[in-house]
């Protein structure tokens, strides 16, 4: 493995670069020949089924796991002496009996800041994440949404160049989720590079500048969502057929003949069709198929559809 620093100016400045990474736990290989570049001011969304190697990739990026092969450049090189990469874990990794501000100060101190720097970094991080008003509240007494934001604020105290968020919106309500999404977009504006590991395709669709799909330790698709989707779906629309009851065997055969496959549940099927101007005719045909249809939704395919197309099971 080679570790060094490299600065190139492509579309945006690369913050971290992994080349041909192979990582393993003992004799069990997890990542194979993985290459990835993360750029400043971009949000990269990483998706993949459980066990695909997402957590392992994150551990390589934050320097917790040394790859057995490959090269690391930029912020992720020489992690032990740098605060360039920070992880926001899925769990609320905070001290519950400390206030939001004290948590930020504590983590700033732990990454080597002196007291004056720590105070300044803490206030800046709380402002960036919209937590200034709750700075003095003990974390244990905060709502789920605010805890998630403080969880992010704490990672910002070292002024990282790369911020990794593991499932940042899991387990919170829609309003809190919207606030987290706003916070992430605001952070992007500061020029920081953001990597989001998620199973939430709504998040992925709304946040991703680029997305990557990790299957069996390999990044099988990487690119801007529009490019990835058009390469697979071209002009096709996603037709979602919501059933009112579980389909019988005959009904399942009918749905398959229409090119549909089960989507998020056994009662929601989807198919991708280039309908052109044939929308009404297609809907009539579906209605005539004597299926227990409750609702038909037609939309542009999203990253969730692409994930399923690539063979991923619906994680939710």
């Amino acid at each position, binding site marked *: 493995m080679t570790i060094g620093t490299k600065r190139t100016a492509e579309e945006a400045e690369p913050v971290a670069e992994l080349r041909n990474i192979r990582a393993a*736990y003992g004799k069990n290989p997890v990542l194979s020949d993985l290459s990835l570049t993360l750029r400043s001011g971009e949000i990269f969304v990483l998706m993949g089924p459980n066990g695909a190697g997402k957590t392992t990739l994150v551990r390589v990026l934050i320097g917790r796991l040394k790859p057995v092969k490959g090269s690391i450049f930029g912020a992720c090189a020489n992690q*032990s002496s740098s605060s360039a990469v920070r*992880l926001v874990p899925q769990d609320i*990794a*905070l001290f519950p009996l400390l206030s939001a501000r*004290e948590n930020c100060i*504590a*983590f700033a101190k*732990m990454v080597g800041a002196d007291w004056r720097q720590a105070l300044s970094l803490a206030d800046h991080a709380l402002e960036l994440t919209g937590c200034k008003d709750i700075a003095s509240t003990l974390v244990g007494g905060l709502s789920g949404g605010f805890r998630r934001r403080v969880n992010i604020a704490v990672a910002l105290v070292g002024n990282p160049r790369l911020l990794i968020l593991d499932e940042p919106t899991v387990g919170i309500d829609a309003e809190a989720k919207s606030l987290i999404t706003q916070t992430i977009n605001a952070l992007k504006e500061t020029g920081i590079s953001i990597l989001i590991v998620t199973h939430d395709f709504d998040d992925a669709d709304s946040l991703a500048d680029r997305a990557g799909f990790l299957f069996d330790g390999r990044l099988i698709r990487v690119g801007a969502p529009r490019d990835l989707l058009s390469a697979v779906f071209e002009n096709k629309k996603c037709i979602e057929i919501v059933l009112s009851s579980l389909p019988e065997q005959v009904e399942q055969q009918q749905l398959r003949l229409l090119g549909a496959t089960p989507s998020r549940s056994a009662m929601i099927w989807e198919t991708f069709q280039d309908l052109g101007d044939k929308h009404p005719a297609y809907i009539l045909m579906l209605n005539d198929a004597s299926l227990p249809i409750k609702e038909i939704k037609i939309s542009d395919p999203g990253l969730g559809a692409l994930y399923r197309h690539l063979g991923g099971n619906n994680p939710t």
Partner: protein
Amino acid sequence: MILASTWIMLLSTLRDRAALLMSFVLPPLLFMVFAAIFSGTAGSDLKLKIGVIDAVGNDTSVRLVRALEAEHSFRFIILKSGDEAALSDFVRRGMADAGLLIRGDPRRRPDEGPPPLLLIEDTARPLAASIALGQVMRTLNEKLPDVALSRILADVEASGAIGKDEREFLNEAFRAHAAEGASFSFSNVIAHGVVGQSGKTGNGNLLNYAGAVVAVFLLFAGVHGALTLLDERANGVAERLAIGAETFDPTVAGKLLYLTAQGTLQAVIVFATAYIIYGASFMPSRTGLWLTSCILAAAAASALALLMCTACRSRKQAETLTTFGVLLLSAVGGSMVPRYLMPPWLQDVGWFTPNAWIIRAFELAIQPAGGIEELALPWGVLLLIGLVCTTAAAWLSSRRTAY
């Protein structure tokens, strides 16, 4: 990172009422209970209840009953009538810790029947009977010496050295001598000397119990603080701080620093309770030795607690292991029962516990005599426990979070 970790522990403890109670209120409370039980501070003496029946009712037995009633170290419950069965039942029902039946004239000759006094023991309270036996013998010797001597004279007569007339003459002489209140040298064989702290409240004993209680709570409070390592491992804080990337986890040193300071304060509070409530104190010149013992004891107990917790994979596992470990160490190490009451083999095993060394360090530090050279061994052992356990805990904590 070390000082930040200490600061986090301090703030977390100050805001955790349960931890504050456990660390600073429970130890002095438990000490007061121990002091009351073992040092007789609640009433100045151990007060066993002894049920007494005088089935004879002659001059001698009445003298004995009155002498026993005058003893302040016991509560004698005089039953007006009854026999051995009644007294046994009285003791069995827990109305008294032991029973004394005066079933014959205490002066009668040994060949005239069974022993005149019968002590009834409850097997559930064997110590009470032993203590009562000693006290009755002491009362007989000191308050009724002529009675004790009359039995000796009967033995001498039986050996043929004196005749009946001589025995009766001597008996009368001793009785007259006793009636005048004169002292008998045979009952005054043993003088009572004291080493260590002394005073009306039994300073040394109290301070030893303070040390014993401190040892238990240093371990318990250490475990309570050390469990945060497992919480931080479970909730992702450890991963966030990249613990595991280094060979030794620096937060362990931060926690040790805090727990040592907290433990020292705990010890000071317990000893202050002994001073304020019971007036137990030691010479001001020993303060330095005592304070050093406090610090080393706190460091050793905290380091051991950190090691026990880092050796576990989860909080639940650690709670089980540490409760078992702390109670076992405290029982064997003399924090619950003084080690001199234990069988010799258990006393030897006790030296493998930090409690025994902590108690020993306090004992040597507060006694009026002796210098630093006597403390070198307990201090050395405590320092060694602290260093070895901290290093092992920091290494283990790092390994537990490494991949």
